[in-house]
């Protein structure tokens, strides 16, 4: 056990009595939030149930038949959405994960239906767009970032950014997906026609992180095709993400964009200027020293900018 009660008491004049008492009650465990525990249990439950549904679809096709299976999983997904919607005024944290379960079941069901009945024929890839729209509607209806992330991945898959493609073919879809996400984020922030007030930026960070990471990753995949272009594109993207991190006062953007930039610089130097194992090791060793020094400076500036 760890208790900061002594330090909190010494800050009572600064924090105020009410805040200090609340914090001390937390230190004494007179108030103990099981929110994180429940969150992990509910997430685990939803994902285990979705996994069970996937195995059910795989193992019982001949015994139950595709139509019955598809209807069964679809009905289960619908039940999750309806049940949470009816309870929305007295929702608990676990209800978010019932929505997640519904979304995961929809993903499985739609793919199953398309693989069995070929409703879209040669345009089967468009089922990902349908999936993205369905998940997006659910994400907005229930205010769920997790379901929004499923929508984003479906949208990225629709433009061709998926894990089964070779790295060489990923760059263009990655930038298309990032551009779509930036546009979606902009639409998300447009005030509705009934009011002039900008909607809360509830989903903005999710869009930003996905767009940044997909674009940066896309830049790196370009290295496999063209080292110079890939390196430069990654560096420019990383610079933009770092600038965005400074502008929005969000440290993670700065940090991970910096890491992508270091990888791009190393790849560029090793491929273009030096060859051989010794030279590569010298480049890596020196670039790490430079990267550490650079990140220390960048981090200090970020902190100073926040003051």
């Amino acid at each position, binding site marked *: *056990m*760890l208790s*900061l009660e002594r330090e*909190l008491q010494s*800050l009572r004049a600064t924090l105020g009595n009410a805040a200090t008492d609340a914090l001390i009650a937390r230190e004494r465990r007179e*108030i*103990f*939030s*099981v*929110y*994180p*525990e*429940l*969150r*992990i*249990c*509910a997430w*685990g*439950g*939803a*994902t*285990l*149930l*979705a*996994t*069970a549904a*996937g*195995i*059910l679809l*795989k*193992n019982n*096709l001949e015994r139950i038949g595709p139509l019955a299976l598809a209807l069964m999983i679809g009905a289960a997904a619908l039940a999750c959405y309806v049940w949470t919607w009816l309870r929305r005024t007295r929702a*608990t*944290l*676990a*209800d978010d*994960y019932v929505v997640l*379960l519904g979304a995961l079941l929809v*993903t*499985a069901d739609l*793919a199953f239906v*398309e693989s069995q009945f070929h409703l879209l*024929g040669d345009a*089967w890839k468009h*089922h990902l767009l349908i999936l993205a729209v369905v998940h997006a509607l659910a994400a907005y209806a229930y205010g769920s970032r*997790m379901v929004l*992330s499923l929508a984003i991945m479906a949208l990225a898959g629709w433009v061709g950014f998926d894990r*089964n493609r070779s790295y060489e073919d990923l760059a263009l879809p990655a930038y298309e997906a990032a551009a779509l996400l930036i546009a979606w984020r902009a639409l998300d922030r447009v005030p509705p026609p009934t009011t002039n007030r900008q909607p809360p930026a509830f989903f903005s960070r999710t869009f930003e992180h996905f767009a940044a990471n997909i674009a940066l990753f896309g830049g790196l995949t370009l290295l496999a095709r063209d080292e110079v272009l890939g390196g430069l594109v990654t560096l420019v993207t990383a610079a933009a993400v770092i600038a965005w991190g400074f502008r929005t006062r969000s*440290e*993670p953007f700065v*940090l991970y964009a910096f890491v992508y930039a*270091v990888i791009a610089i190393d790849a560029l130097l090793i491929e273009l200027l030096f060859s051989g*194992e010794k030279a590569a090791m010298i480049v*890596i*060793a020196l670039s*790490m020293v430079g*990267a*550490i020094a650079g*990140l220390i400076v960048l*981090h200090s500036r970020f902190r100073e900018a926040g003051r």
Partner: protein
Amino acid sequence: MNVEHERALHLRNTLHRPQIVIDVPWRTYGLLARAIFFVLTCVGLGAVRQLFELFGVPAPGLFLGLAALGLAEYLIRDRRWFWTGIEEALWLGGTVAMVSELPRSGRAESLLVIAAACGIPGWRVRNPLFGAVAAAFVTAYFEKRFDLGVVAALALAAIAVLALLRTWQRPSNEWLWILIALLLPAVGRFYADGDWRNVTIALYLLFGLSVLALAIVKRHHALFFSGGIALAIAAGDVIALANAPLELMLAIAGGLLLMGSWITARLLRDRRTGFVTTPSKFTAFDDELEVAATISLPQQDFDQRMESGGEFGGAGATGKY
């Protein structure tokens, strides 16, 4: 870093109130920056080590280790760097590099040497993760030497759980016990033999239920998670033993978890003292981690691996139709 400074830093990170100035006379970084500095330093050390070998430097690990330790001590003592990730990587990389120069015997005791190579830097830079990894190597020694890996892991985890019942002054000590209590039950499972499956289930059930009971009485998050991990391992083994369809067992387990958390959340909804469900986080990245875990589910692979003509895999399954 002395006790007062460590506690002050912990207080500053816990309060999240930039307007309250809590002075800590050390250069430190947050978790994400620290992890990045750690990785960059480790990559740099690895490259230098490789260079030494390419240039035929005799005993490269020894020279690299001494240089790394010297630099780490300079940064800590003169520059007052602590928990930056850099001096931590230098200490760990330095000791591991020196240990790599020892002749390879293949004996079980070499695992204790590796444990020391993690534990000593852990103690010097007060990194609880290094200490927990050292404890994991000790259990590996018990497994190799006496075939008692599971028992050793659960015994060390039990010691950590008991240690968490007393009050610690240093947050790093508290975190060392937390990580041992969380990590070792999972590590121990890797040593479990099929012949001893029933005993393993019984041990994990006993450990899990006891720790959960303590968690409810003492109200400690780590105890909840340690007990939960042990029970999940026991449940996984029961599922593997059971002569029932996998999907049924997973559905029962998932249903119990989801319903259990729903009922608990509902029961605690209006409570203001004792056990409550007020939103709280372990790290600043809880939401991002949850999103990352959700999109890496095999379920997400489902649609992307599907091709016209009927092939898909996902949700933990891969199938052709």
